């Protein structure tokens, strides 16, 4: 009588199958391992898109299901990227430094090596000392732990303060915007210890890996697909159970949930922190593919885009968020990459690089007004077409029998 999780949620299986097929198809068409139809740079774009889909899943969890419109999740995404970027940059610089110092007559001491690395990394901001936050940057394992730990702790502290004071609705959205703006402004400073507005660069080069970018890009593509699959599975499992019931209850009527005896603040804090961790993992996979991270990545506008993707895709359903993020971000790449043909109106030429944001804004307004279910709502149209809801009870013994209303017409 207790059906399995997959049987109760067929959309999860469909999604995972589609993702697996897509991954396989891209691999076969890739330059690295396949016939070379898809360029390596486009593989990277696709891999990055999968990471954006993963953070969209997190956004859907917090906004579509728990009803908390967080406009700060790109802060966690960026922090995750910075954490992995620190190790990538340290380790690669160390290898180069050790290589060049080994040419010298006297073997370098370890402190000389560290100084040289510091000089290489921080010379650009006029320093050569390692700041305290780089203390663990020589250990891949510890930096991987920090990928989850730092954004998770930030979310925990921020969420605890905000939810405990019962800040809700638009006030909370503004607060999250302030958080991500404050983080961006802090990181822009040269003495923040993360190279100011230069950010961390050269992240696409994995230390001690001799394989070509053709292969590395595919590794990251696979890792991103795996992370998206696992993240989707986790999110679907969370929302399908009683926890999902409670957070949807919080979205629809917070006070009622409280009077049922659930501590609404705790639930909000848990889902906020969890989605921050998912966002951080997505960021840690995204920036090695992008190759560079700088403070502009955590600017408030990035988190607003995230909300737009989820709204256009259809919030409150996980595949909607994925579709929205993939569709809008790929379309955005197409328009802003100068690939979309300009439209000449005679007196004025519409250049999509400039006009894309206007188009995006208009479609956001249109979706909000006319199709609140977003693109995911199209799936409803299709499934209703298959199983029309004819309103009314069965008259006869068979499913196909006329319904009450139809019979009386």
């Amino acid at each position, binding site marked *: *009588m*207790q059906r399995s999780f997959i049987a109760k949620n067929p959309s999860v299986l469909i999604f995972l199958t589609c993702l697996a097929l897509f991954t396989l198809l891209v691999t076969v068409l890739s330059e690295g391992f396949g016939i070379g139809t898809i360029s390596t740079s486009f593989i990277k774009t696709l891999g990055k898109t999968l990471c954006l889909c993963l953070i969209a899943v997190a956004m859907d969890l917090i906004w579509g299901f728990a009803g908390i419109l967080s406009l700060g999740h790109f802060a966690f995404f960026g922090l995750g990227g910075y954490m992995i970027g620190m190790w990538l940059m340290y380790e690669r610089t160390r290898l180069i430094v050790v290589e060049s110092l080994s040419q010298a007559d006297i073997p370098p001491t370890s402190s000389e090596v560290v100084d040289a690395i510091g000089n290489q990394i921080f010379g650009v901001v006029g320093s050569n000392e390692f700041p305290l936050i780089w203390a663990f940057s020589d250990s891949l394992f510890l930096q991987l732990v920090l990928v989850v730990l730092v954004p998770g702790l930030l979310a925990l502290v921020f969420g605890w303060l905000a939810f405990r004071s019962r800040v809700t609705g638009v006030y909370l959205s503004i607060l999250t915007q302030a958080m991500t703006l404050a983080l961006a402004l802090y990181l822009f400073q040269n003495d923040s210890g993360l190279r100011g507005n230069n950010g961390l660069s050269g992240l696409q080069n994995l230390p001690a890996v001799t394989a070509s970018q053709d292969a590395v890009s595919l590794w990251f593509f696979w890792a991103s697909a795996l992370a998206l699959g696992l993240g989707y599975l986790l999110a679907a499992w*969370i929302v399908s*159970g*009683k*926890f999902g*019931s*409670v957070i*949807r*209850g919080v979205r*629809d*009527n917070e*006070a*009622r949930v*409280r*009077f*049922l*005896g*659930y*501590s*609404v603040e*705790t*639930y909000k804090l*848990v889902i906020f922190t969890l989605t921050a961790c998912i966002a951080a993992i997505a960021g840690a996979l995204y920036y090695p593919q992008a190759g560079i991270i700088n403070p502009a990545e955590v600017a408030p506008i990035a988190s607003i885009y995230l909300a737009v993707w989820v709204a256009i895709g259809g919030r409150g359903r996980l595949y909607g968020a994925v579709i929205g993020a993939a569709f809008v971000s790929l379309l955005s790449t197409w328009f802003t990459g100068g690939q979309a043909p300009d439209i000449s109106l005679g007196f004025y030429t519409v250049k999509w690089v400039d006009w894309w944001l206007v188009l995006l804004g208009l479609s956001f307004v249109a979706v909000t007004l006319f199709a609140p279910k977003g693109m995911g709502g199209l799936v409803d149209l299709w499934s209703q077409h298959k199983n029309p809801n004819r309103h009314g009870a069965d008259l006869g013994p068979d499913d196909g029998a006329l319904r009450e209303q139809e019979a009386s017409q």
Partner: protein
Amino acid sequence: MSTLLEVSGVSVTFDGFRAINNLSFRIGEAELRAVIGPNGAGKTTFMDIVTGKTKPDEGRVIWGEKSISLLKMNEAKIAQAGIGRKFQKPTVFEDQTVQENLLMALKKPRGWFAVLAYKPSAADLEKVGELAQEIGLLNELKRKSGELSHGQKQWLEIGMLLAQEPRLLLVDEPAAGMTPQEREHTTDLLLEAAKTRAVVVVEHDMEFVRRLNCKVTVLHEGAVLAEGSLDHVTSNQEVIDVYLGR
């Protein structure tokens, strides 16, 4: 009869308006009580104070045989201690099925981790089935509760309250907007519930209160005006002046 809830000398002021003025109230373990009063008499504020939504300026609210003060507890803790509340408007989770609504209300650990790991056992589902039977929604278990009629939503909410297994039930205008048959069913549900627990019903409708056939407390301007059987209070001259005479 031992006292379950004792409210004594409670006052609360909103922007200079004294909504509750030195109110005292007590109810026993298994008792049905109707609270009546004109608009603005403080009925809803009284419930807000007991359930922790509003903190009074002064006074005490004492709960249970251990005499715990409810004033230091938040809404969730008070609900866990055994006070259930039904709102005036039916507030069920419309996006979720009747079964999900009832499962959420079922008396189980409320911590987030326990809830995350929760899988409904056969016994839980059976319990939900029994409750659904009692509130006449057995055939609607898989339907979204937003599709139910107004009366059915009211019952679902009462069912959710019963699933919580509270020791004290606060019910705000349960019969509002119901058909006569639905009212009768609601009366039965409340009378049945009051056999094993304390029930406080806030109601405007005198006919409904008469059918409950219980002790009545009349509130006026945030204080108790009269208390006793319905016939006793309706013959009270003060009550007639402020309420019934209008």
